[in-house]
C-alpha cells in the first residue's frame, strides 16, 4: 500500500498550481462556443491539462497516459474557481470511441474540433420504447445510394439544442438478431428533417430532448465500425458513462458542504448539527461516503497497476454513488426543514437551491444510464456470476 505519488508528482502539482494562479482571472464569456472558450480549451491542451494522452496528430497533447497526473489536474482544478476543461458526451464518449474504432478520416475530422469545443455532440441512444431494453431500438437507417436515410425518434438526448453532431444508434439490419442489427452513425444536427423538442423535467429545467428524424440523409461513410456492429461500438463507452455519474471527489465536497450547512442552520437557536438525531444521520452518510472514497482509490490504483482486479468495485459505483448522493442531498433538505423546500429564486433560498436540485437530479441519475434495477442485474450476473433472466415462453 502506498498512497504517495512521489516527488515527480509533487513537482507536477506545483506546476499546475502555478498555471492556475497565473490564469485565475480568465473569463470565457457566456456562450458555449465562444472564441475565448475555444482558446482556453486549446491552452489547456497545450499545457497537457486536457486531452493529455490523445495523440498530437488528432489535436491532443500527445503525452503518456498518466492517471496520477490526470488526478492531480482534476484535484487542483476542482479546488480553484478557474474554468474546468469542457466535458460532455462528445469528449467523454465519442472521442475515445473514435480513437479506438473510428476510421482515420473520422479521427482527423472530428477529434480535434471536439476537444477544442468547436463541435458539441449529443448522444442518440434511448428511444421512447427502448429504455432499459436499449437494444430493442427501432430508429431506422436505410442505405440509399451513398447516403443513409434515417427515420425515427430518440429521447433523453442531452445537449441536443447546442450540438452540431449526434452519435446515434440506428437499426440498419432489420432482419438480424436485435443486438446485431444496429449501426453507430454520426449525424450532423443541421441536417434537414431533424426536429428537437425539449423534455421539461421535475427539476424545472429541460436538460434532455426528444429528437425526431424524418428522412434525414447523411453520407454513407458516417458510420463507425461496420454495419450491424453498432452495439459493440457503443458498449465500451456506455460502461464509461456509468462510472462517471458518481465522482467521489464531488461527493466529498458535497459532504463538507452538508456539514457546513448543518453547522449554520439552526432550530430554536440550536445548530442542526447539535441535534443528535440529525447528526447521527450525517455520520451514517459520512461513513458511506468514506467507504466509496476508499473504493475509488482502489479503482484509481487499478488504472496504474493493471494487474489489480476491481471488476466488482467498478460495477457497484453507479448504484452506490447515485443512491448515496440522493440520500445526502435529502438529508440537507431535512436539516433545513421548511427552508429546505425553497427553490428557484425564492427569498431565503440556501446555496442557490442546489440541495433540492441535486436531490431530484440524482433521483434522475438513479434511473438514467441504467436504472438501479439494471445495475443490480449487472452486479449479480457479471459481478457474482448469477444466471441471466431466463427466456420467457411466449404466452
Amino acid at each position, binding site marked *: 500500500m502506498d498512497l504517495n505519488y512521489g516527488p515527480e508528482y509533487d513537482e507536477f502539482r506545483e506546476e499546475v498550481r502555478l498555471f492556475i494562479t497565473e490564469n485565475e482571472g480568465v473569463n470565457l464569456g457566456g456562450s458555449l462556443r465562444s472564441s475565448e472558450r475555444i482558446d482556453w480549451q486549446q491552452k489547456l491542451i497545450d499545457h497537457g491539462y486536457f486531452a493529455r494522452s490523445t495523440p498530437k496528430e488528432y489535436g491532443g497533447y500527445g503525452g503518456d497516459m498518466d492517471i496520477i497526473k490526470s488526478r492531480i489536474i482534476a484535484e487542483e482544478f476542482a479546488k480553484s474557481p478557474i474554468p474546468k476543461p469542457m466535458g460532455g458526451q462528445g469528449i467523454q464518449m465519442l472521442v475515445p470511441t473514435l480513437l479506438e474504432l473510428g476510421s482515420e478520416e473520422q479521427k482527423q475530422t472530428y477529434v480535434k474540433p471536439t476537444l477544442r469545443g468547436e463541435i458539441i455532440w449529443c448522444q442518440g441512444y*434511448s428511444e421512447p*420504447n*427502448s*429504455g*432499459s*431494453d436499449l437494444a*430493442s431500438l427501432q430508429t431506422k437507417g436505410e442505405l440509399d445510394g451513398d447516403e443513409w436515410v434515417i427515420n425515427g425518434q430518440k*429521447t*433523453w438526448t442531452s445537449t441536443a439544442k447546442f450540438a452540431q453532431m449526434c452519435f446515434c444508434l440506428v437499426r440498419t439490419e432489420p432482419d438480424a438478431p436485435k443486438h446485431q442489427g444496429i449501426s453507430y452513425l454520426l449525424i450532423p444536427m443541421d441536417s434537414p428533417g431533424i426536429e428537437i423538442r425539449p*423534455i*421539461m*423535467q*421535475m427539476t424545472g429545467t429541460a436538460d434532455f430532448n426528444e429528437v425526431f428524424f424524418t428522412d434525414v440523409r447523411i453520407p454513407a461513410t458516417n458510420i463507425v465500425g461496420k454495419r450491424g456492429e453498432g452495439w459493440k461500438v457503443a458498449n465500451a463507452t456506455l460502461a464509461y458513462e456509468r462510472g462517471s455519474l458518481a465522482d467521489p471527489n464531488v461527493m466529498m465536497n458535497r459532504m463538507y458542504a452538508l456539514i457546513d450547512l448543518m453547522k449554520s*442552520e*439552526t*432550530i*430554536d*437557536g440550536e445548530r442542526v448539527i447539535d*441535534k443528535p*438525531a*440529525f447528526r447521527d*444521520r450525517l455520520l451514517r452518510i459520512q461513513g458511506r461516503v468514506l467507504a466509496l472514497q476508499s473504493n475509488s482509490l482502489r479503482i484509481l490504483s487499478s488504472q496504474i497497476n493493471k494487474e489489480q482486479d476491481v471488476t466488482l468495485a467498478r460495477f457497484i459505483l453507479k448504484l452506490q454513488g447515485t443512491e448515496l448522493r*440522493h440520500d445526502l442531498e*435529502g438529508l440537507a*433538505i*431535512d436539516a*433545513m*426543514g*421548511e*427552508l*429546505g*423546500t*425553497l*427553490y*428557484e*429564486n*425564492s*427569498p*431565503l433560498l440556501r446555496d442557490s437551491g442546489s440541495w*433540492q436540485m441535486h436531490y*431530484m437530479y440524482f*433521483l*434522475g441519475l*438513479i*434511473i*438514467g444510464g441504467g*436504472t*438501479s*434495477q439494471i445495475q*443490480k442485474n449487472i452486479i449479480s450476473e457479471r459481478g457474482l456470476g448469477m444466471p441471466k*433472466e431466463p427466456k*420467457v415462453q411466449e404466452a
Partner: protein
Amino acid sequence: MYFGLSEEQQSLENSIKRYLEDNASLDTIKAVAGGDKETAEKVHQGLIDLGISSLLVPEKYGGLELDMLFASVVSGALGSGTAPVPFTGTYVMAPLALSLAGSEVQKDYWLPKIAGGERIIGIGLSEFVGAREDTAISFSNDTLSGRALFIIDGKNADAFILSDKAGQLFIIDADDSGLTKIELTTVDKTRESMELVLKKVKTEILPGSEKNQDVINKVIDAGRLMLSADSLGASQVMLDKAVAYSLERKQFGRQIGSFQAVKHMCAEMAAELEPCHAMVWHTAHCFDHIPEEARLMACHTKAHVSEVGKQVSRTAIEVHGGMGFTEELGLHYWFKRIGLNRQLLGSPELVREEAAKIQNFDQSPPESQRTKEAGNPLLV
C-alpha cells in the same frame, strides 16, 4: 365496533375525488403551477361548494360541524389530486383555533365567513414548532412584532393566526400597515408559501389560548394529521400510477410489471402504505373521541407517513423510469407535495422528538415488569 369510514365519509371522499378528476386534471395543475390564478380560484370555489370550507365550523356558525375523520378524508382526497387550493390552514386549523379559543365576538365574526368560503385565514405556527433563522413573534401593547415563516394558506388571506413562543394565539388583519408579506417559492407549486414581517401590527389574542398551550397543541395536532392525510392520498396515487404504468410499459418483450424486481418494489410500497390508511383514521378517531391519545398518535402519524411517503414517492418515480422524471407525466407534483408536507409543522426527527417528550421518556422510570417471554412459542 366499526373501524373504517362511514358511508357519508366515503361518499364525500368520492365526490371530492370525482370533482378533482373532472376539474383539476393534470393539465389544470400544470396551468396553476404556471401561474393561472383564475383557474385555481375556480377549483377552490367548486370545492367550497362541496363543503370543504364549512366542514369543521360548528352548526351555529353556519358550518357542517363534522369531525376530524371527515376532515382527514377530505385532506386525503385533496392530496390524491394535488389540489391547488388552501385547506389545512384556513379550513382546519383556523376554525379549530377560533372554536377552541376565540371570544364570542371573534367566533361570530370569523366562523360564518370561513364556513361560507368568504374569508381565508393563513396560519403561521412554524416558530412555535421550531424557529428557523432568528424568527420569532412577540406580543406587547396589543401589537405583534417579528417574523414568521411558511405561513400555511397565506396567499390571498384576509387575516393570519400567529403564535408567540409561549404558544398563545393571535389574529391579525392582512391589511395592517405594519405587515409585509414576502412570497416564498417552494418546490411545490400547487400551494403557496409566505414569510411575514411584522412591525407593531395591531392584534387580538384568542383569549382561550392565553397562558394555555392546550389549544395550540390541538391545532398543531390537527394540522399534522391533515398533512399526513394529504401525503398519504398523494402517495397512494403514486403507487397506483406505478402499478398501472408497469402493466402498460413493455421492455425486453414483457410488461415491466412482470419483472420480480418491479413487482417487489410495488409490493414494498403497498406494504408500507396500507397500514398508514388505518393509522390516519385511527389518529382522527383519537382526536375526536380519545383525546388523551391524540397528540402521540398525531406526532407518530406525521413522522411515519412522511417517511413512508418519501420512500414511496421516490420508488414510484423509479418504477416509471425516465418518464417518472418528466414534467409531461407530472409525477413530480405528487413527489413535491409529499416533500413539502414532510417539512411543514415539523420534519420527522423533530416530531418524533416531540413524541418522546409526550411520553415523558426523559423523566419516567421503567413502568412495568418486563415480559419474561422466551423459549418455544410454537405451542402457545
